[in-house]
């Protein structure tokens, strides 16, 4: 009994020293606080802001969007609105039908089908009031035209401010660059 209690005490005292060592180590390591208004986080990997349009490689003013409407259909909160021009049905009916079939496939086949056959996106907005940030639209987009923005300064005074016009945002961003 006595030996056991003595051993327990010795182990306990040793654990106190270990604890002091842990806090001393943390004391000398640099702190991890980011002084928010003056500093921004160096890495925002995995941060989910509202969605934004990805600019295409050739023209930063244009989006990669192919106006397939997958995001609008898949959104559980129904907060994405998209308007697209109707595909012009002039010639090459066959090609057109094939393109509409392969909407969800890779973009290469699309490029091969005539340019006139493609619908074009003219307006794209997200109502961030209802967005649940599930990310299904980003996952489902066949052309990789959607991504989460890193806009964590988002704040506003009215609901209307969160009805975000993504095309305007894309263009103002392109202007900045």
């Amino acid at each position, binding site marked *: 009994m006595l030996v056991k209690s003595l051993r327990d*005490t010795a182990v306990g005292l040793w654990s*106190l020293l270990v*604890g*002091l060592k*842990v*806090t*001393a180590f*943390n*004391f000398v*390591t*640099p*702190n*991890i*606080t980011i*002084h928010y208004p003056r500093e921004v986080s160096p890495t925002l990997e995995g941060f989910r802001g509202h969605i934004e349009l990805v600019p295409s490689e050739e023209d930063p003013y244009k989006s990669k969007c192919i106006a397939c409407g997958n995001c609008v259909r898949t959104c559980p909160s129904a907060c994405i609105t998209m308007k697209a021009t109707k595909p012009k049905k002039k010639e090459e009916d066959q090609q057109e039908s094939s393109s509409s079939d392969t909407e969800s496939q890779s973009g290469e086949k699309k490029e091969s089908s005539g340019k006139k056959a493609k619908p074009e996106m003219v307006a794209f907005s997200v109502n961030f009031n209802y967005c649940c940030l599930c990310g299904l639209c980003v996952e489902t987009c066949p052309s990789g035209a959607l991504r989460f923005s890193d806009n964590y300064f988002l704040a506003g005074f009215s609901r209307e401010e969160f009805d975000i016009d993504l095309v305007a945002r894309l263009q103002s961003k392109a202007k900045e660059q």
Partner: protein
Amino acid sequence: MMDIIPTQFIVIFVGLLAIMTFIAVNALILVYLERKVAGFIQRRPGPYEVGPQGILQPVADGVKLLGKQIFTPKGADSKLYWLAPIISITPAIVCFVVIPFGPFLQVINSNVGLILILAFTGINVLAICVAGWTSQNKYSLIGAARDISQGVAYEIPLLLSILPLIFMTGTLNLYEIVIAQGAWPWQWFIASQPLAFFIFFICSLAEANRTPFDLPEGESELTAGFHTDYAGMGFGLFFFAEYTYMTVASCIVAILFLGGFQGPIASGWWWFLAKVYVLLLIMIWIRWTFPRVRFDQLLNICWKWLIPLAVLNLLLTLGVIAIC
């Protein structure tokens, strides 16, 4: 004119003024140190916004406390209720009167200095008892009851651990105890009485109600313990008193075990302050490392370990003194 006022009176008056200034500045420094160390240990910057590196934060806190409404709870005995914080802080000021800061920096060189400090630090228990009792509040009362049992229990090993030193030096005069130790660390009493040093240090943590022995104000179960109902400067004075008692405890440890103002090169008050602040930093470090003990553990540490060890240490020392 000068003949009417005795010199001793002037010395004490000036000394008390200097002491009050010292403990006020010291409390500001300690509040800042405590919060900075807490921050760094938790890998955050601590106070940062008020002044450069948040250095004016304790001043801002003080101004906030001064500006708060003074409020007496319903049913409280208002005279005693407001007397309690004053009873808590006054003895702490008196304790500094006999502490030798340097070879010539001491208000009164008293032959019973050690006894005076031990007696006056004990009054804090009374202050907390009064505060808990007059608050008419369950949390306060339980906090006060805890403080009394803790204070009574830890007073015993505290005294028992000092006794060997008194036998070795044969004096209760703090200045002479410092002089009895040499300038080098191996001549200090921590080298000849290491066990007494540890017992005394642990007991002084408990007496000053510092974590891991801060049961009287255990936030997790008692809101704020004995000072739950105090707002504004009532709370401020208790807070002030806690830091002052910490400083008194560090001063006594530095004097009894670490050679006081004596140091290897150029003895003086700077050595004393350096030792005191190192001890205070260790107390703060301990606070942000260890969790609070349970009440039965608190009493077990005292009755099962500290008191028997202190008695053993005392008997050993007496034996050695008798043989030599």
